[in-house]
């Protein structure tokens, strides 16, 4: 059984169908890059997996937890998949440590000392242990995004969804975030990332999904997809003619 099973998922906003039947199975430890033009549905797909968007048809399950639209099932699913956003979405009123501790304490009812120990460990992992007491607006974008990663990791998810996590960053800050992701991949974390970093996708990912007009247009190992694109759309997207 695959870790994440996406079966015939469709999603419409009114009459506009943005996902037109997506099938994708992700094995444990896989690192998948989802690429495609804006509007191709790649972010929507990611958001559907975490229940931030409700799907119109089809099914999604993560490690046996079925995506359903009620609080109990959503919670069970979200405990298994973490999500990192383009805009970081750190909680501005909490310190870095507070950000990483909050959901452990609120959702998992972890006692404060354990939550703090976990927070310190995760911040250490992303190289920010010295920023425990800083507020998010005192950090650079790259640091904020690393805190967001630590925050998601502190919930001990079995997979992470990364939605264009470097797109809002200044170019010189992209590398520090990607280095963290690269490490996670090396440790065997299952990752699903929407990204524009083609070099990163080529180096790190086990599979690349090219989405076009709401469908999985091409899928394969990075060396195949990048070196030998089959469809004119992918060729055009990659800048080959």
């Amino acid at each position, binding site marked *: 059984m695959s870790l994440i099973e996406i079966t015939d998922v469709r999603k419409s906003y009114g009459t506009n169908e943005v996902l037109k039947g997506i099938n994708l199975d992700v094995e444990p430890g896989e690192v998948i890059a989802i690429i495609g033009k804006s509007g191709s549905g790649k972010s929507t797909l990611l958001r559907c997996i975490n229940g931030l968007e409700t799907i119109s048809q089809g099914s999604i399950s993560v490690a046996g937890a079925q995506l359903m639209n009620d609080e109990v099932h959503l919670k069970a699913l979200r405990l298994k998949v973490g999500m990192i956003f383009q805009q970081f979405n750190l909680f501005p009123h909490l310190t870095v440590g507070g950000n990483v501790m909050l*959901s452990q304490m609120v*959702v998992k009812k972890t006692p404060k000392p354990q939550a703090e120990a976990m927070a310190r460990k995760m911040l250490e992992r992303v190289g920010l242990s010295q920023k425990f007491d800083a507020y998010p607006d005192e950090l650079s974008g790259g640091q904020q995004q690393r805190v967001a990663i630590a925050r998601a990791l502190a*919930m001990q998810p079995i997979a992470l969804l990364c939605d264009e996590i470097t797109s809002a960053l200044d170019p010189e800050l992209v590398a520090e975030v990607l280095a963290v992701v690269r490490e996670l991949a090396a440790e065997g974390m299952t990752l699903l990332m929407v990204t524009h970093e083609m070099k990163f996708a080529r180096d790190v990912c086990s599979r690349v999904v090219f989405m076009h007009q709401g469908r999985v247009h091409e899928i394969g190992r990075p060396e195949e997809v990048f070196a030998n694109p089959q469809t004119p759309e992918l060729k055009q997207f990659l800048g080959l003619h």
Partner: protein
Amino acid sequence: MNYQFEFGWLFEYYPQILKGIAITLELIAIGGVAGISLGIVCAWVRALGPAWARRIVAAYVELIRNTPFLIQLFFIFFGLPSLGLQLSELQAANLAMVVNLGAYSSEIIRAGIQATPRGQFEAGASLAMSPFETFRHVVLVPSLERIWPALSSQVVIVMLGSAVVSQIAAEDLTFAANFIQSRTFRAFEAYIVSTAVYLVLAILLRQTLSMVGGLIFPRRAAR
């Protein structure tokens, strides 16, 4: 104008004034804390509650915001006993202030909640928090921080508005002024003095609220 100002009565009547100040402060302390709490609950219902509850809260807010505080006070003090709810002057004054501030503050707080970036709700959800947990731990504090100045102004307005509770014989600062003027026939002086006291109270209350804001929102004080 051949009027001789006379403030000598102050020496005799200052205990009344002090007592009046104490009652006014007590009213705004209770009214402020309970009113803002009620406002938070109502704002939460209006932002995230079920449709029927939202309608009830909306009706309450509109009703209060579109009728004078004096009439709300009279209705509570004179009208409610016919429903079997007999309140003392101070209880009625307190209740009226809570109900009044609750309605105004819920609108102010709701504006703060609506200004919350969508990503904050999504981040809460993605961390497996329920909508209520996200509201309580993620949305509420920054929302309050955003509208704290407006909320503070409203509390000051309600404090000044509380002058009318003297009309149901709650013994606040205005009641003291009325009492003194009826004894000394120094109406103008009595009201000038109490007006000045209200002005000072308003300034102090504003500063206190700003300090309270600094305590509740440490990030703001740090800047």
